[in-house]
């Protein structure tokens, strides 16, 4: 097969990996930064942490895989994306590091100062990634001010962290925060019981309205700010992707209102996946468009690995991704029961 087939396969996989990462870590991040609002006491905080306890680590690996896949399949993009977003990624790394250890460390000592410090750490370290991922993707959609001289393999870039915080980047950032907030609240609603679960359901219902407003703003603003619409106008059949995103978002509200929280959560998963697919479809075949000059765009065709590497990676992905999905489903089934207050109080292994 021609190399372009593999380049397209890896573009699709690249989108899928990010979408699955946001779908899975989205509810962990949402649960994390809503913990301050949702939990009224230490036991409820522990219930929240334990509701994500068995799965957060495995969910985060999708990010490492998305990063690794970008490195392996599109090394030039990996190099530029990561070095150009340096300051934002440093903040992101700090947040992810703090979040991971907070879950493990919070319960290891008694004492209110200790626990309160980790509570604050959990909220900040869950909120920042949600916002930063949104800002980063918003800026990728918009295009990054870079010049790319392929003959000399020379890249120049003039952007800063402040430059990333442009209005469109911020709107995308807020969109991600609200998506994950609703997603997290729905997760808490199905994974806890009694009052805490109800409180989460009410919050999910309330947060849905601002989410809708920002989603509409994002769709509207994308027209002047990005070239995302071009592919959809060229091939109108693709419009089905954003339509599924919008329909899922509406169904989230429909089921949440009826109290069918499992269904609402399922459609929240679909919303996130199809929001990411919408962005990725709009980008194709670019991975990072240049805002200065279309000739400098990093595309899947000019930034990919060699045919051999793409072939090897495809074989690995075809075997491993289904395997991973299978055992992850098994794990979610083991831990499908809601976490109750008495569980964390009696279980010596709970966080």
């Amino acid at each position, binding site marked *: 097969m021609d190399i372009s087939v593999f380049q397209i396969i890896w573009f699709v996989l690249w989108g899928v990996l990010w979408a699955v990462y946001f779908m899975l870590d989205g509810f962990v991040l949402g649960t994390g930064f809503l913990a301050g609002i949702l939990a009224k006491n230490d036991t409820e905080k522990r219930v929240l942490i334990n509701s994500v306890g068995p799965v957060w680590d495995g969910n985060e*690996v999708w*990010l490492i895989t998305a990063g690794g896949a970008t490195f392996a399949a599109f090394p030039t993009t990996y190099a*530029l994306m990561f*070095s150009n977003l340096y300051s934002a990624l440093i903040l992101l790394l700090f947040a992810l*590091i703090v979040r991971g250890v907070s879950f493990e460390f919070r319960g290891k000592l008694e004492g209110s100062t200790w626990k309160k410090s980790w509570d604050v750490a959990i909220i900040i370290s869950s909120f920042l990634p949600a916002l930063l991922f949104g800002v980063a993707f918003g800026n990728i959609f918009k295009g990054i001010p870079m010049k790319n001289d392929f003959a000399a393999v020379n890249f120049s870039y003039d952007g800063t962290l402040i430059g990333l915080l442009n209005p469109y980047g911020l709107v995308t950032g807020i969109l991600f925060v609200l998506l994950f907030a609703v997603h997290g609240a729905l997760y808490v609603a199905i994974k806890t019981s009694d009052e805490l679960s109800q409180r989460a359901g009410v919050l999910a219902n309330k947060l849905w309205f601002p989410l809708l407003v920002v989603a509409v703003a994002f769709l509207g603003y994308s027209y002047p700010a990005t070239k995302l619409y071009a592919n959809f106008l060229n091939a109108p059949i693709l419009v089905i992707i954003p339509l599924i995103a919008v329909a899922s978002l509406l169904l989230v509200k429909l089921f949440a209102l009826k109290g069918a929280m499992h269904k609402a959560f399922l459609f929240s998963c679909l919303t996130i996946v199809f929001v990411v697919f919408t962005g990725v479809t709009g980008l194709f075949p670019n991975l990072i468009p240049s805002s200065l000059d279309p000739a400098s765009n990093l595309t899947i065709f000019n930034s990919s690995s060699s045919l051999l*590497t793409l072939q090897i990676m495809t074989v*690995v992905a075809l075997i491993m991704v289904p395997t*991973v999905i299978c055992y*992850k489903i098994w794990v979610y089934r083991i831990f499908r029961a809601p976490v109750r207050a008495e569980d964390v109080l009696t279980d010596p292994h709970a966080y």
Partner: protein
Amino acid sequence: MSVVTLSQLQFAATGMFHWIFVPLTLGLSIMTAWMETKYVTTGDETWLRMTKFWGKLFLINFALGVVTGITMEFQFGMNWSEYSRYVGDIFGAPLAIEATLAFFLESVFIGVWIFGWNKISKKAHLVTIWLASVATNVSALIILLANAWMQKPVGYVIRNNRAEMNDFLAVLTNDYGWIKFIHTLLSGYALAAFVIMGVSAWHLLRKNENDFFVRSFRMAAVWAFVATLGVAVTGDMHAVEIAEHQPTKFAAMESQWETRRGVGMSLLLIPDVARECNNVDMFCIPNMLSILAFHDATGEIKGLKEFPKELRPPVLPTFLSFRAMTGLGMFMLLTSLAGIVLSRRQKFVEYRAFLTLMVCAIPAPYLAEQLGWVVAELGRQPWIVYGVLKTADAVSKSITTTQVILSLIGFTVLYGMLGAIDIFLLVKYAKKGPDKDVSSIINVQGRA
């Protein structure tokens, strides 16, 4: 300082910090799995208590190993984007494969292991710790194969202005990587065994839970001795590889300036870098170095003077690190052998001086681990990919010194705090000793 130097500092700092936690994870995961196997097969509750106690130390340590690993992956793109672009075709694949093949398995099943005690059957629970620890070890293998490619590049051609893979099998079977993997893996087992021996000795000195800790000590002493012996053997095999493929590193490790045949090994050497010779050179064992390097008494060892100055690694730190690492290895070999012999005796708990020594020995393997990486990575300079790409050409062009200074300060502060908290918690839980009552953690029966 330049972006290159700062990025090197940052990579060294974050890598070495990551490497405080990984060897203990490698060793403790497999030893915990071993203890749980003993519990499941014998039904003896002491093994269950051992699984729980050592497993808790494993988990506190594991968390930091995981979160600091992401930093390593991201830094390739952030600080070394020219490297990533130039060799991504061949270096990116192992990283991606590690994530899908090993890291998922490890992270998912560690979660099940922690939270699954009362949710799945005993046997299924045992399977989860084995899956997690095998995945941890596989993960180390793949990362070390990636690192080995930087040390001894194989299976590539330079094409389209970058290194492109042309033989994946060569990358997977790079003997440099496999020897280094076994060397590194066994050193992790030795480190974990020394931690178990040290903590056990601490409790035995206080006559706390003698049965529990004598059993732990005995088990760990055997692991430590066998592993350290393996580290020494693979270390020798590794040196042969280095002498052949990385002559500058080998010359720096041994402080050899002149190219000679039938070189002896001096037990006391003091290098003089400015004058390009050794000031003190005493207690020479004739032909020993040639034998170690090539398993041939008359083998020719290339001296540093053979290479232009700008292609030589920093001699003094490489030399000293290598000497100190091997010295610590000898110390570990002797003390673990003594541990096996003494812990078999009835009055083992009365050997207070020895027990105190074993408590004090806990930092020894940690130091040896760090020094090993100094030899491997500093000894490779000025190359990032030996003979292919210089470190100075690998750095990102779009980042500024200010950015790296700020991130380096950030890492230092954050890692410093987390390291302190982690050590504090490890010491606290190690001192606390095992739980008396394990009845609440017996697995449910009959569920798959």
